[in-house]
């Protein structure tokens, strides 16, 4: 059980129903952090648009996106985010042994250089709370400035999501406990 009950359709106000409909245009259901945010339609609407601005209209490809989500979810031990994304991460081409290493807090053996670089950048940002010059320069050289902006924005947005998941102890969909 999480700290908040999931939203019940019959209890929603008209404004909440509108936001519910907007969120489910790009998601199968209103769950996880969006279940928390739905209590305040203004916040739910803004959060939905922010996430969609990169998830749906960003240029970052799905593999890199889901790869960052895995790193961020594991860093914050945000079980809901991990459980909601792990299958997708596999489907978009992240190697199972890479996913497993991230889950258990080990450095993966990368076969893809872009994943190794993104791992170094995001891990440094989250653990050391800074980004060394050489890693920034490598990001810029490999991906260019616009993609670097997207990469670190995904890390930031999912850190924000992880904070909400942790603050409200949002439960995993099927009781999964990926970090225990």
């Amino acid at each position, binding site marked *: 059980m999480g700290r908040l009950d999931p939203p019940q359709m019959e209890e929603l106000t008209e404004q909440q129903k509108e936001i519910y409909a907007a969120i489910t245009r790009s998601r199968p259901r209103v769950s996880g952090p969006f279940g928390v945010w739905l209590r305040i339609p203004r916040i739910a609407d803004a959060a939905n648009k922010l996430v969609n601005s990169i998830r749906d209209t*960003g240029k970052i490809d799905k593999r890199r996106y889901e790869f960052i989500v895995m790193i961020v979810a594991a860093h914050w031990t945000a079980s809901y985010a991990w459980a909601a994304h792990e299958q997708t991460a596999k489907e978009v081409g992240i190697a199972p042994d890479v996913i497993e290493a991230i889950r258990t807090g080990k450095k993966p053996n990368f076969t893809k250089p872009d994943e190794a670089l993104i791992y170094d950048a995001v891990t440094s940002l989250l653990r050391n709370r800074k*980004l060394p010059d050489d890693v920034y320069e490598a990001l810029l050289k490999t991906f260019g400035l616009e993609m670097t902006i997207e990469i670190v924005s995904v890390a930031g947005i999912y850190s924000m999501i992880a904070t909400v998941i*942790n603050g409200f102890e949002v439960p995993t969909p099927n009781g999964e406990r990926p970090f225990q």
Partner: protein
Amino acid sequence: MSRAAPLDPATLTPEQQRVAAAIAGARKNVRGPFTIWLRNPALAEHANAFGIALRDSQVLDRRLFELVVITVCRAWSVQYAWSSHAPAAEAAGVAPDVIAAIRDNRTPDFKRDDERIVYDVTTELMQTKELSAATYDRAVQQFGIEGMVDLVSTVGYYAMVGIFLKSFDVPTPTGDRPLK
């Protein structure tokens, strides 16, 4: 110097001009993270709107909002955001000795219970990656569920802003480093 130079206003696309005007309307000017996010106008637009939605909390007054912001800035050593929000915190009524204690990584001697609760929620989430039942319960008693959604979301939002600013090493306007 920031790692990413601000865009020349003369080179903005119509979409970037529209978003820049919206940001400037809400924040007086386009500064800090928004100068960089503006390269991706959809991200800039919705990062701005989410921040404004949180700032307009119906439960947390501006004093508590700015206290959250500076506490997150300290946790991530975000020089730029500290330099713009520490004066805002003081103007909104956070005591100077509280601000100085946060800046110096000391636990403030709070005179107000609501500030102590906000500080405890923020530091627990950022330092321990979880929120104890005792602190959660105290916060819900003080602010209600809706205030708690605003509070936790604001912590997460400024973690995102911090990650972004650290990625680009955005300096303070004068180049000083208030956070040691």
